[in-house]
């Protein structure tokens, strides 16, 4: 049971505020924001997602730069509240098409309408976009999507946060198209976040794939969907992650450590032929989450070197090799490397003919940043940087810098080789064959090379 729900902008402005029970004193939004902004608790300088001030528990999740907050005085399950806050954000996004400060402000009456149906007196009633449709009467004012995301569909995957912002569909589940008729379509996205740590000698120390099959359906008449996955898919097959690392790289079966499913998914034929069947509810939702520690071929190799070249000088050499097919292109690649604290100046030397690459030395946190708009499969890129120090480095310079971390997005590529073999739509509504979109995306979660 929660007491209040509110949404704050990054500056701390109240965008939405709903008090369900009137038992938390006034000014909770200010108390919360001040606490988060000036968090101090011993050595930790970042506010945890839940904390207690004067008997009031404040929960918050960050969604597209907004703070979704719930307060309560009772000792509630934290994962319940976090899940709820995420779900509220998702429902609002389903209705508004795009979730941001602007769309919230434009549609606040609709948002209040939703909030009143989602929670009553602090108790969750429903978070199903589908069910909510019959209670919601305001029409969303959809803001222009094109104006907001000029980049390609994959651009929204590249925000560097751990959370998946979702699939690149920005139309409301209730708004009618300008043409009057709704387009029959269904989106299935296989999104994989990969984490890898390379040792200084290039060995893979740890690796993990966290994947999600996301669905967003705009089909009328709620037809049944059947999703067939790899037939040789195994679950829980690799006995624990430690023994799970194999020397041969993923030829053959896909072995998941574990997975879970949306409640609408029926697994009747999953054991026999790896097929999921479901009647997709409206809105965006994860059909399946999975996790694997089976060895896979990393999309990038990173070589990093730092050497002293004089008493107050050193040189950094970075090489990134794209080890995927040349038909595939990685987007918005960024390589970062912390440099010694006493670095004062950095001069960069890009490879000849470098295109769409930028370099930067972030003085404040002494970090080197190298951005590449895109990298084609099979290519290699290098960067040299000359460092100037303000003092002699004592001891081991490699201990004073690194590790190198990398973020990227690779559309139409997935490392796990998990595939949607086919997507079957039960009964057709109308004469048109619905559009089906099955897309793959791989994104770096924690992609690190030690030096």
């Amino acid at each position, binding site marked *: *049971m929660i007491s209040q729900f509110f949404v704050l902008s990054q500056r701390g*402005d*109240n965008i*939405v*505020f709903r008090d369900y029970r*009137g038992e938390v004193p*006034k000014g909770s*939004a200010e108390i919360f924001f001040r606490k988060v902004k000036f968090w101090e608790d*011993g*050595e*930790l*300088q970042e506010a*945890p*997602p*839940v904390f*207690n001030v004067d*008997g009031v*528990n404040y929960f*918050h*999740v*960050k969604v597209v730069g907004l703070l979704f907050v719930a307060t309560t*005085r*009772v*000792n*509630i*399950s*934290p*994962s*319940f509240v*976090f*899940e*709820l806050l*995420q779900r509220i954000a998702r429902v609002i996004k389903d209705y508004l098409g795009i979730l941001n400060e602007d769309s919230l402000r434009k549609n*606040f*009456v609709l948002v*209040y309408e939703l909030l009143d149906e989602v929670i009553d*007196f602090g*108790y*969750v*009633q*429903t978070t*199903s976009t589908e069910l909510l449709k019959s209670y919601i009467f*305001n029409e969303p004012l959809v803001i222009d999507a094109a104006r907001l995301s000029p980049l390609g569909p994959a651009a929204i995957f590249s925000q560097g946060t751990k959370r998946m912002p979702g699939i690149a569909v920005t139309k409301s589940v209730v708004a009618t198209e300008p043409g009057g008729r709704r387009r029959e379509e269904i989106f299935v996205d296989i999104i994989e976040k990969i984490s890898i740590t390379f040792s200084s000698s290039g060995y893979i120390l740890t690796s*993990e794939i*966290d994947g999600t099959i996301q669905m967003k359906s705009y089909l009328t008449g709620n037809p049944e969907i059947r999703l067939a996955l790899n037939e040789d898919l195994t679950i829980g097959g690799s006995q*624990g*992650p*430690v023994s799970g690392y194999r020397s041969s790289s993923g030829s053959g079966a896909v072995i998941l450590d*574990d*997975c*879970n499913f*949306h409640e609408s998914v029926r697994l009747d034929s999953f054991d026999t032929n790896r097929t999921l069947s479901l009647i997709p509810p409206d809105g965006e939702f*994860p059909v399946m989450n999975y*996790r694997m*520690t089976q060895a896979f071929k990393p999309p990038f190799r990173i070589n990093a070197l730092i050497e002293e070249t004089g008493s107050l000088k050193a040189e950094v050499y970075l090489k990134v090799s794209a080890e995927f097919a040349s038909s595939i292109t990685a987007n918005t690649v960024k390589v970062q490397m912390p440099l010694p604290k006493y670095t004062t100046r950095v001069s960069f030397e890009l490879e000849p003919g470098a295109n769409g690459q930028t370099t930067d030395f972030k003085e404040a946190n002494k970090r080197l940043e190298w951005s590449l708009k895109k990298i084609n499969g099979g290519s290699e890129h290098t960067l040299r940087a000359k460092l100037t120090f303000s003092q002699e480095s*004592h*001891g081991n310079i490699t201990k004073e810098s690194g*590790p190198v*971390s990398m973020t990227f997005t690779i559309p139409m590529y997935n490392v796990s080789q998990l595939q949607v073999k086919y997507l079957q739509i039960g009964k057709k509504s109308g004469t048109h064959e619905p559009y089906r979109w099955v897309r793959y995306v791989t994104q770096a979660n*924690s992609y690190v090379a030690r030096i």
Partner: protein
Amino acid sequence: MAPPPPQSNRSPSPSQPSGKSEVSDLKLQLRQLAGSRAPGTDDSKRDLFKKVISNMTIGIDVSSLFGEMVMCSATSDIVLKKMCYLYVGNYAKVNPDLALLTINFLQRDCKDQDPMIRGLALRSLCSLRVANLVEYLVGPLGSGLKDNNSYVRTVAVIGVLKLYHISATTCIDADFPETLKHLMLNDQDTQVVANCLSALQEIWTLESTTSEEAARERENLHSKPYVYYFLNRIKEFSEWAQCLVMELVAKYIPSDNSEIFDIMNLLEDRLQHANGAVVLATTKVFLHLTLSMADVHQQVYERIKAPLLTQVSSGSPEQSYAILSHLHLLVMRAPYIFSSDYKHFYCQYNEPSYVKKLKLEMLTAVANESNTYEIVTELCEYAANVDIPIARESIRAVGKIALQQYDVNAIVDRLLQFLEMEKDYVTSEALVLVKDLLRKYPQWSQDCIAVVGNISSNNVQEPKAKAALIWMLGEYSQDMHDAPYVLESLVENWDEEHSAEVRLHLLTAVMKCFFKRPPETQKALGAALAAGLADFHQDVHDRALFYYRLLQYNVSVAESVVNPPKQAVSVFADTQSSEVKDRIFDEFNSLSVVYQKPSYMFTDKEHRGTLEFSDELGNLSINAETGDSVVPAQRVEENDKDLLLSTTEKDDVRDPGSNGSAYNAPSYNGSAPSATSQPLADLAFSSTGATGQAPAPGLAIDDLLGLDFSVGTATTPSPPPLTLNPKAVLDPGTFQQKWRQLPISLSEEYSLSPLGIASLVTPNALLRHMQSHSIQCIASGGQSPNFKFFFFAQKAEEASIYLVECIINTSSAKSQIKIKADDQSSSQAFSTLFQSALSKFGLP
């Protein structure tokens, strides 16, 4: 002028209109539209309403439009109605008179054709939160609960709960709880059922403070018929309601093992749910049901591992944190089960520091012979991290692993490498660790001292690290060539040393060094004692004076006091009592786990909610008279610190720097002159701490290690007459836990004197009376003729506790007593004591 609306505390930002003129403008326009029947009126109204609501949400007071808004609400347009309801709900509470205006149209809407309007109107009606309007609620609520539309019923059920909060008596008088109970067991719609459960749990919990029946009803929810009823429908419930049901099931006590397996088989697939809250709720059921079956309980750990790890990596960062906190708890309880999963607890560079901190603790816990090397290697990587607090934590983690391992060979090397890294904070942390390591493994002194000897004290600034270095200089002065001279230069800079802790260590180190290398240290010792005697800090001054007198009295006695033969410390104190840990485990899947504190430490009583463990105590008010309410607060403080302290810091409690002097001098070799007994105690305490002989009884430490108990049993070979500790303390949480765990060792009935009965007019008098007999009351309640008390007492020299439930019936002048005791052999003696105390009640 009406008081400001609830949200007016936000001052409007400059870009927003000041409001005044706009509000009157809106008022005018609303009036014009109110009577209009022209086409398109509803659209204009919508725009206007939107403006009003928009002003309301940014904190401008638009309550003056109340009349006009109500007039405009006569419409069939549902969007308009909804906005109007939102407005009314916001302002009714602060404008009770105006709220009356709305009753009419809301009541009318409650009878509308459209179930949607009926539901909305009923919800708004119940949300007015105006006490003098409750009479208007009963009728619509009654019909709402019987409505043939499930939406209206879900609204009505929550409406009953709202009514209860406005006027409990109206709600009870209308017999609504009984109606909800009926609905809960019969309604087809699971959301109606779930709402009934939520509402009844809240109502019965609040009612149970005064009504035995409500308490019984609430307990009944955990009984087999209810639990099975909910379980049979579990898959019809929404994911949120499933969490609610499983919270209930976790409290169910099955009659046999086959029941346990049936429930687990039924819920097994809930572990594959994408919603982390459902997975954790299921986990809680599994863990709690199998507590009494050790091997199955262990299988449960194995079973829930993978789903929880999946939740950690697939959820939002916030959700990951919540799940990880629970994994942390499980890892701490059963590290061996997770020892092969250690790679999952490696930190990722982009994780927030609160997540890294949890992971470091988990890595520390799961380290064993087979994985230590890899874990320590990984931790050493973090030690060079750009995130300095985490780098420090990592080094401490290495140290903790070293202290809990048998084979520390490799780790010592790593620690020594830290010392050579020449980063201030790394050196500081490593010095503290090496000190602790030497206290546990003196055999490593040769290797360590060689490296420590190379560290210039000028490069060490942090007091903890400096103190550690000085301690090593004193302790190993015979092996460190420079020791006397380093100490001497430190003494020379006495005035620049701001930390009293460091100065205390310096005094002791110079003393130790003096006994080993007198000629070289004599000068430094003289200077140190002189500086110490002139020190403004009380402890430093006292210690200097004490050393001075000790030396004056007899140098060889002084040496045996300051430099006794060493004994290695075998175990460093744990940071959290197992009692607190168990309590947190009881509250699995709640904030207690994230905060690492039991709920009574951060939640006020009326908001403990349904998660709290409920037993008889829950029915009664915690008694404030005995001062117990103060005790938990202090405990919070202590535990707060405990959580932040690492093992090494905890250990410092035993160091000379921070002790009090409220304990007795322990027996000691070589009789000390009585004149110095006070400061001697001070020193003896520190030396025992350092040598690991039977530690002296200091209050805080007794508590922590339960030393009271061992000392007590050792010195009482034959049972003496029972005496009670007059200052016994027990927090309500522990009381509840013990009450639940211990069997009843005695159950008796006494008669009370008429005088005693007469004095019970004021039950508090009994509490004070019993307190004078060293029996404390922890909770009391009831009304004439039945009173119920919970007492506790503690043996004078032992930790052994007695718990008493005492029910007094004033009309029969009888009291029924149930006694539970840690030490059951003495419960008869205690019963006699208790009876004699009780029989004296009321006597002049």
